[in-house]
């Protein structure tokens, strides 16, 4: 296989990571909403933790984007 095409295929495969992060972020907000609707009084106090979870899940997806960008533009 040509190195150039292998790079592009690798970058495309890295997009799987972005999709996985989408599942993760959806899970974070979904679980938050599910429990926030059960106990709306406690929901506001947990917003900090919500965004910590969001940040952690999102970072891993962004890393896959970095991998794709490195494959296309740097490597």
């Amino acid at each position, binding site marked *: 296989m040509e190195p150039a095409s292998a790079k592009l295929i690798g970058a495309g495969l890295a997009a799987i990571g972005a999709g996985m992060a989408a599942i993760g972020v959806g899970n974070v907000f979904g679980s938050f909403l599910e429990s926030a609707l059960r106990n709306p009084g406690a929901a506001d106090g947990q917003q900090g933790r919500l*965004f*910590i979870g969001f940040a952690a899940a999102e970072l891993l997806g962004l890393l896959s984007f970095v991998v794709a960008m490195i494959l296309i533009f740097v490597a």
Partner: protein
Amino acid sequence: MAEAAKVDPMHQFTIEPMFGTDHWQIAGYNIAFTNSSLWMGIAAVALLIFVAGGMKRELVPGRWQMAVEGFTGFIDNLLAANIGPAGKKYVPYIFSLFMFILFANVLGLMPLGLVGVHPFTFTSHFTATGVLAVMSFAIVLIVGFWKHKLHFFSLFVPHGTPLVMIPLIFAIELVSFLVRPFSLGLRLFVAMMAGHVLLEVLSGFVINGVNAGLGIGPVVSVLSFALMIAICALEILVAGIQAYVFALLTSLYLNDAENLH
């Protein structure tokens, strides 16, 4: 059929000197005034005007003062919730950090291209976000070692760790601590860059669709354009969330430095 127009999604991130040349160097580093520095200056000036407008200290606050006080109150609550009473002294730093990043992100999304100005999002460069992250990390280190001296290292050994596990846990916690400035800077820079690349790629679809003529062209263009509008709304949300996450994580790290575990 004509050759499809090339829209280079990475061109928007080019840093070029506004005036001066690449030869303005000190010790091998270029010090020319670039578009990145220009937009940093614009963000700082806009922030100064915004805050100065709310400093009239009226007993019955007007709209502008309410807006500024809303932001300061928001940061105040954030620090009170995450650090406690000791967090009060970090309000100026976290407020400046949050507002500077927020203004930078939002200014970069402004549709100024319509009047011929090319907005530049300097938070889409790791050099800018990395320095902000290193600043936060340095404050954590300084406060931690100042306040707890060498006890600060107990941050890396959670309470109740079995003796056998201490070396392993220490190594893991140390690595996760040292990775913090990278993850902090990387998150902001990649999130901003990804959004701008996405918008540029979609605008490339619109342009190529229009050029393709009747048939499939208009369908692609209209759909891409509708998607672009939706993504723009999402980007405004991301601009706010990323600024908030940066401030939130900085305050969490400061909490580690202030209160250990």
